[in-house]
């Protein structure tokens, strides 16, 4: 080691105390990217992985071939659910700080991904979310109380106290159980989609990972299987620029977009403005039709920004400029849709303030109801015997013995 080392070490554009700098982000103007037919061969549409599909322009108007021309009701629904998701996050973040739940992860700044995509999918489509997709649950109608009870590990917990907060599920609404392990559900989503194709059904599968998780082998397994079998699946990379302390360059985002990861396999990729609900809806619709018509998978990269910390255990002040989000060139997804609705004459600041107030009450009421099922410190508590159930379909003898041992020690009746 007498020579000068020459490994390339990726560096984020700005560290704490420095000016935020997003000049590395290649942006397209709204409306300029062509929209090909959804059966176009992957080879002819590689540009979609490198450009940035945007619909909302700087004047808050919808423009270009990707404009999904959504009616007023859908737009207002999208806004309501994004506001609700943010209010839910805000509340849960605060109750974690008060010690009422052990952990939390916000989706601040990324709400358009879950809401825009959720609206573009059919109820029978199976979702394999990551831990920042709470909007999918809220949009599909999972009660806030149920989400909160999961975070509280209380008697209303859908996971019976087995999982950390935010690891939700909703089988009735076709949302798979979340795993805390990264990218593990990506190949599972592909398998689900293969199952759908084997059975001749039209339901598709959809999964999400962050930019950081694209480095996991499971991400690459998923792409390979999806491409080989042309599975009816949409694979999403939510590129929020940060994986805890490492910026997206550490996942290989410096030279080519994540949307281009599948091109070598002949899988189309679309890079979309992840804070533009209309663009997200439009590209998702395109991909769903492609998948449902038997033309195979699509990889979608959502370019967005992680507005909050990675989790309540993280402190981003240590590794990125505090005001970085404010400088993010694609803005705030809620604000952008709001401005669009104002421009269309469907919305106003007064109406928005009223919506926020109303939403706050909905979340407050849900929280009051949720804690009536118990908290970490207040009864009622879950029955600890539940710990021994569901390891297998039937409780094996050795676990029955261990359960009885536990009950004997804690003086509870079997």
């Amino acid at each position, binding site marked *: *080691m007498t020579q000068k080392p020459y490994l390339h070490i990726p560096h984020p554009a700005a560290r704490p105390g420095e000016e935020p700098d997003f000049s590395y982000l290649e942006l397209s103007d709204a409306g300029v990217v062509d929209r090909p037919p959804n059966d176009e061969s992957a080879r002819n549409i590689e540009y979609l992985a490198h450009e940035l599909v945007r619909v909302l322009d700087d004047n808050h108007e919808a423009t270009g071939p990707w404009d999904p021309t959504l009616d007023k009701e859908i737009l207002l629904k999208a806004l309501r659910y994004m506001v609700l998701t943010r209010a839910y996050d805000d509340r849960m973040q605060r109750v974690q700080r008060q010690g009422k739940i052990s952990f939390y992860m916000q989706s601040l700044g990324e709400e358009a991904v879950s809401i825009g995509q959720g609206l573009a999918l059919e109820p029978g489509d199976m979702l394999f979310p990551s831990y920042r997709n709470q909007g999918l649950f809220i949009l599909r109608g999972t009660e806030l109380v149920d989400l909160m009870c999961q975070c509280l590990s209380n008697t209303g917990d859908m996971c019976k106290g087995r999982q950390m907060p935010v690891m939700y599920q909703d089988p009735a609404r076709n949302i798979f159980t979340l795993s805390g392990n*990264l990218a593990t559900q990506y190949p599972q989503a592909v398998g689900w989609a293969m199952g759908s194709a084997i059975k001749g059904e039209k339901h598709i599968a959809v999964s999400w990972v962050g930019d950081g998780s694209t480095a996991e082998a499971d991400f690459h397994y998923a792409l390979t299987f999806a491409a080989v079998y042309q599975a009816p699946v949409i694979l999403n990379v939510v590129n929020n620029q940060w994986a805890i302390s490492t910026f997206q360059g550490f996942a290989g985002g410096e030279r080519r977009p994540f949307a281009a990861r599948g091109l070598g396999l002949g899988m189309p990729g679309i890079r979309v403005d992840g804070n533009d609900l209309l663009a997200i809806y439009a590209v998702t619709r395109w991909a769903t039709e492609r998948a449902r018509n038997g033309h195979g998978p699509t990889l979608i990269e959502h370019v967005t920004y992680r507005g909050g910390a990675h989790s309540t255990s993280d402190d981003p002040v240590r590794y990125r400029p505090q005001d970085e989000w404010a400088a993010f060139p694609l803005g705030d997804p809620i604000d952008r849709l709001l401005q669009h609705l104002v421009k269309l004459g469907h919305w106003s600041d007064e109406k928005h303030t009223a919506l926020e107030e109303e939403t706050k009450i909905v979340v407050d009421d849900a929280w009051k109801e949720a804690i009536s099922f118990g908290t970490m410190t207040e009864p009622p508590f879950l029955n600890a015997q539940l710990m021994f159930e569901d390891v297998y379909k039937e409780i094996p003898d050795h676990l029955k013995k261990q359960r009885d041992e536990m009950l004997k020690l804690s003086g509870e009746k079997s």
Partner: protein
Amino acid sequence: MSQMNMIQAINSAHDIMMEKDPSVVVLGQDVGYFGGVFRCTDQLQEKYGEHRVIDAPIAEGGIIGTAIGMGVNGLRPVVEIQFADYIYPGFDQIVSELSRLRYRSGGEFFSPVTIRTPCGGGIRGGQTHSQSPEGIFTHISGIITVMPSNPYDAKGLLISAIESDDPVVFFEPKRIYNGPFDGDPDKPGVSWSSHPMGEVPQDYYTVPLGKAAVVEEGDELTIICYGTIVHVAQAAARLTGIRAEIVDVRTLFPLDIDTLKKSVEKTGRCLVAHEATRFCGYGAELVATVQQECFWHLEAPIERVAGWDTPYPHAFEWKYFPGQKRLAAGIRKVMEAG
């Protein structure tokens, strides 16, 4: 001497070895600029540069696989896997490659990789941040497995691990990073500053691999344990009033059979305890070894206290964790038998 918690002791072991040996490099997620999510590699990148303390993509298999390659090329990589619960994507590289490189090449190739990883529960981490998978690794021929129970040992053992030409998986019980936890979650946390093993030399020293430590002498019963449970066992023994000899295995493989043997031959009774699940757990090996080595000295069947054979739950952490009450019940059982 200075006061260190386990994080500082581990950090100091890195620092000393990086200073001493320019071939030592650190690789892992968030280990560089950020200094690690538990801060075990804090300030190291600033001091030794980005070519020696390397932030890695989120790819445990990639981290361990590339570390093996660096090791083959003459470096001495120290890898951090952020949680032991996330080591499995790298499992193939450990089992099929790292552990057998020397064997399959007739001794021509080896890679002196140390894999550090926080393990164990007690932090409300649920099934993905609480596991104790050491028994899976002790089952693999070709690697050394370590789990320290205090700052002094952590530093000395980590230095030995880094210096070892054999690969080492180094488990760090995260519940005792900041203080010795005796298994009672209702008591206020204790820091290492009031514990003798929190006194740690600032300079180089080693604790040899393959040597257990008798942390408390006694003549009525031997408790064989490691990691967090060492402190729980001490508290449980006090609870029962039994004069227990507490043996901290420290290095799970190679196992210091002589120290175990000497103790059990003296006491005639033995309890084995660990936080990991019981079935086919590391305790089974301990029981088999003690039974074989000390059979004619045993006055009672050897008892085992371990985590229940379920995944680690989020809600019932203290009913799952083998705390003082469970260990005390185990102690009484051994004392009453035979």
